[in-house]
């Protein structure tokens, strides 16, 4: 077992910095600390980097630098960044749990042995960390789903789930940005556009930020022009 973190070359344009084999909060804090250190002290030739659950990918231009130089610079940052990351911002996301927007709420209530309101209140009580983006543009994986509403993924994906779906599976929550098939349980809909496409901040929240959900009514949704 190699000592963590490890730096692995990826073709001639990447270094994968791995902190753990499975997700755990301590390793993710170190990933966020490295993420912040990279933005404060850019490495020459590095074009972008991608924080994820157990590792962080550094992408570079092979005409400007190489693995050796990038790995050395990353290891130097790791020595300096081996501290708790600065906490991010808290982003409040509106969500409507009313029936037409929450096709799987009844099933989640049944699985967890709770009432609909019990599931809603448990979801609202969660304190969510933005762990990573993946799968599709603006799909942010939020950790911190309360154990009381743990449900596994469905055995088959449901097609045509609309953008803005607030859904849960395992220990994670996600607000979709596109109409896509999904095997997650849809328990509400948000009118908030998570994927903005702005050049400096293309998403409403970033890895390392916290998310809180705020309940709104179907009338509020209608006022914002969102219909089932």
């Amino acid at each position, binding site marked *: 077992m190699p000592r963590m973190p490890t730096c*692995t070359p990826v*073709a001639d344009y*990447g270094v994968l910095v791995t902190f753990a084999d*499975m997700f755990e909060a301590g390793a993710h804090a170190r990933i966020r600390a490295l993420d912040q250190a990279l933005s404060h002290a850019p490495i020459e030739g590095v074009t972008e980097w991608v924080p994820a659950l157990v590792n962080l990918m550094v992408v570079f231009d092979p005409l400007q630098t190489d693995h050796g130089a990038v790995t050395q610079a990353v290891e130097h940052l790791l020595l300096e960044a081996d501290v708790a990351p600065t906490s991010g911002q808290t982003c409040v996301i509106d969500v409507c749990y009313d029936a037409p927007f929450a096709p799987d709420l009844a099933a989640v209530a049944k699985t967890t042995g709770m009432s609909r309101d019990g599931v809603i209140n448990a979801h609202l009580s969660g304190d969510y960390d933005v762990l990573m983006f*993946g799968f599709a543009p*603006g799909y942010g994986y939020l950790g911190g789903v309360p154990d009381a509403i743990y449900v596994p993924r469905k055995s088959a994906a449901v097609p045509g789930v609309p953008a803005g779906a607030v859904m849960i599976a395992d220990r994670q929550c996600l607000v979709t940005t596109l109409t896509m098939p999904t095997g997650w349980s849809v328990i509400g809909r948000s009118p908030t556009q998570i994927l903005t496409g702005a050049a400096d901040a*293309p998403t409403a929240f970033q890895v390392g930020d916290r998310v809180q959900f705020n309940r709104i009514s179907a009338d509020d949704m209608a006022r914002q022009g969102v219909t089932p």
Partner: protein
Amino acid sequence: MTAQLEVVAAGPLISLQDAGRRGGLRYGISPSGPMDPDAFAAAHAALGNAAGSTAVEVSLGGITLKGQAAPMTLALTGGAFEVDHAGTKTSTPQVLTLRPGETLSLRAGARGSWAYIAVAGAFEAASWMDSTATQTVTGLGGAMITTGTRLTVIDPQVRPDRIGFLPDPPAAQGPIRVVMGPQDHHFTAAARQTFLEGAFSVSPAYDRMGMRLNGPRLTPNGALSIPSEPVLRGAVQVSGDGVPTVLMADHQSTGGYPKIATVVSADWGRLAQHRADDTLQFEALPAQEAFALARAHHASQMAYHEALAMPRGSLADRLMRENLIHGRTDDVID
């Protein structure tokens, strides 16, 4: 001043692309950009355009365009595509001028999967996150091009000195070069050997997201549960049933399958030009040699661009130049 290209007929997966979108991976946004970055860059070099300008990427499905409003010079590069310009049949790579009312068709020829159309002027294209590259899965940025699309060309120009057939790009043959990993340790030595010695072919499941391969199975080493992690273009990811897929320009930004190897940047374009049923093999390079290869590839592309930038001019000009090169100026008939 603008001109238009009316799309009379278009196959699937034809889109506007610039050099690609940087900085999006951390937000789940793939880089997109051209499937064959070398042919894309050559099209712009042949016209003297700024590198990375917006071009039309044509798929095997082919395209038929009709010029409108003003003449414009176009560069056509990429896999050996057949060209029909107002009834005259030739092939890529070349530069020609399309006049209003004339029709231009590109169709799949002997080989290659992707062709590029660059214009002297600029294609009008929607920028999203500072890039006009079309992400074909979501439709974000640029535009998908379908029958009936009207492409607007801003400031169309005619460049008589650029017209003519272009020299072929530097030849590249042999196995597709990879650096092993980052998860080759999830495979047995036998599976790694099979990957490097086996013959694979491109399956019909090939689009801008990925290229699934037919061939020997590469069964991962025991039960696998890799947490979803960042992936890059060129990654050879192996699904649970042992089937490898090479990730291409519109790949998902993360994935949970082990990656046995990653294709080096120098071979992205060459790999992308393979078609369904084309065969291919992989060869592993040490990471350090991959940099030397990247730099050598860049140098050969730059030399090719210099050759493309030489004015081609009129037939008399070209005869003169070729005779000068061969030291036979006395043969020139005035």
